[in-house]
């Protein structure tokens, strides 16, 4: 079943990961600072995939940087409607850049999973990462996303052993997000050797691209991961720029994104 979805869902994500170089995946929180400008800066800087964070009052898997981004966003009055408006406008400006929503279950299922999947489809969303819906609870959202051609992107972690990996892959699509450390976002990065071992192990079980995240902050770290993975996810380092520069973060985001993108795209000497 996993295989079926891995191949059946052809959208902007599969086109992006079919490129000859590894992908830079960038995360920012919707409604934190000037989100439209920040999204444009990510694209201008060379990000290949955008993860747009849906703010939640109780971000249990996130460290202080993204927790605070959620608090700032909700404090500024961000609603679910705001997020879909940002996504729709982004899709109109950037028809070809994959856009993924990332967040927690409750805001996604509040109006029902059918409603959410329909809203994602209407806004041109390519995939959804839900932190707290594991494969065991896939019914809560997954079937509705797949029915709309939207990729349910699952997370694998250092605790996802060989026995469990097939369950994680079953029903997932787009790419697999390998969380390199057992912990929360923005903390320390795992050593490159353990990342390589795990990515290699995962790739033996799936044709899905594997993107690696958690704790990636610098071009050097990103390049190291890009040598062994199909994608590198950066979040907290970008969020920190929004925290520091507020509504004027876009130029800073573009600079950091460009340095990350150059490092990731040329990591295998092919850029």
């Amino acid at each position: 079943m996993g295989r079926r979805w891995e191949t059946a869902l052809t959208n902007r994500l599969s086109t992006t990961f079919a490129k000859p170089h590894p992908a830079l995946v960038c995360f920012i929180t919707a409604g934190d600072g000037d989100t439209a400008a920040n999204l444009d800066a990510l694209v201008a800087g060379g990000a290949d995939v955008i993860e747009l964070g849906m703010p939640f009052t109780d971000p249990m898997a996130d460290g202080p940087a993204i927790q605070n981004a959620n608090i700032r966003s909700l404090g500024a009055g961000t609603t679910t409607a705001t997020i879909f408006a940002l996504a729709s406008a982004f899709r109109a400006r950037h028809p070809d850049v994959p856009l993924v929503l990332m967040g927690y279950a409750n805001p996604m299922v509040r109006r029902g999973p059918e409603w959410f999947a329909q809203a994602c489809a209407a806004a041109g969303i390519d995939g959804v990462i839900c932190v707290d819906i594991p494969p065991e609870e896939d019914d809560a959202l997954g079937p509705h996303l797949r029915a709309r051609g939207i990729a349910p992107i699952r997370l694998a972690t250092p605790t996802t052993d060989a026995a469990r990996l097939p369950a994680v892959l079953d029903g997932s699509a787009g790419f697999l997000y390998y969380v390199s450390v057992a912990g929360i976002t923005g903390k320390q990065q795992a050593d490159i050797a353990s990342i390589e071992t795990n990515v290699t192990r995962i790739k033996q079980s799936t044709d899905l691209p594997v993107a690696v995240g958690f704790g990636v902050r610098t071009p050097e770290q990103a390049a190291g991961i890009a040598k062994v993975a199909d994608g590198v996810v950066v979040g907290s380092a970008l969020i920190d720029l929004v925290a520091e520069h507020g509504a004027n973060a876009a130029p800073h985001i573009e600079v950091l994104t460009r340095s990350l993108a150059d490092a990731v795209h040329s990591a295998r000497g092919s850029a």
Partner: protein
Amino acid sequence: MNAPNSDRTMPPAKVNSFRNQPDSRGHFGDYGGRYVAETLMPLVLDLEREYRAAQADPAFQAEFDDLLEHYVGRPSPLYFAERLTEALGGAQVWFKRDELNHTGAHKINNCIGQILLAIRMGKTRIIAETGAGQHGVATATVCARFGLPCVIYMGATDVARQQPNVFRMKLLGAEVVPVTSGAATLKDAMNEGLRDWVANVHDTFYIIGTAAGPHPYPELVRDFQSVIGKEARAQMLARTGRLPDLLVAAIGGGSNALGLFHPFLDDADVKMLGVEAAGYGLDGDQHAASLLGGFPGVLHGNKTYLLQDEDGQITEGHSISAGLDYPGIGPEHAWLKDMGRVEYTAVTDDEALDAFQLLCRTEGIIPALEPSHAIAAVAKRAKEMDRDQIILANLCGRGDKDIFTVAEKLGVEM
């Protein structure tokens, strides 16, 4: 006695038993489940395997029973509150005296069970969240008893209003970490506990304090707390030759209520009333009544009723009782509500405060503010019932920790 009766509150849906939940996936009807991050999923599955093995191991049950008897002080008494009954002028009021347990509340029953599981699993570090501090004290107590390091996450707001319990935890050797995120209360402490757990999965056991969280926590917490109802049922039969007409218990996350209710769920003639915290009233948003004022959603590992806005953002509960102001509720209560087996009501801060004083003066018992909510509901119901009927309420905690809060509300300087 095994089939549901024809009580008007029962929907037509028929079940053979109300006592065989959850299903193999940890679902209580639509509720419960395992809504956790992937990092925690293997642990949660491990815990379930280990709990099944412990359930089948007579030595585990024997050690649990032995500790409850000789360390906790069980069985707790079943007590006929004669003067309160006279003052109310209706049904007989009986209390299950779980406030007499070691550490002064029902929380210790669950902590004994979970630390034995932690030791079985080879875990060497314990974490927990706490609201009022009762679960934190109980966790720190069992950690001291078994010599395991203990970190307690507690909202900074609760740290300020529950100083005596903070000091108790420190005396017992626990590290108390004040949590400043969000409203700095119980839900934020739980978020921080989950963040610690996800980063320390290799050696850490999370002792969850109520019958909520990812499966199998709601089930195992209920099972450990069911000692309350099993004892009460046998004691009531021995003392009166009959079962009570109505069970009453306060509900935050719902573990003391499930502990009392669960062994009676298939006794069709026994009605049950769960009492949520209405705070300043259910009309506004300053309450903690997830079932009466919330909607189903997903938080902290389970699907259940939550206080939330139209976008699914969690709203802050309020109650005079730090142990009740949690925006969720155990998933089994959500199911029991939808099935109509248990009735749920809510009691305001002021009503709880009146009931607190009523019990002090009529029975010489200072109750915690949590069971004061149950007592307030008992006071209302007793008057509507006949004198030969029996109400059994769970007196799940003693009030020593709350005298400062009560003094402030009554305008007394201490």
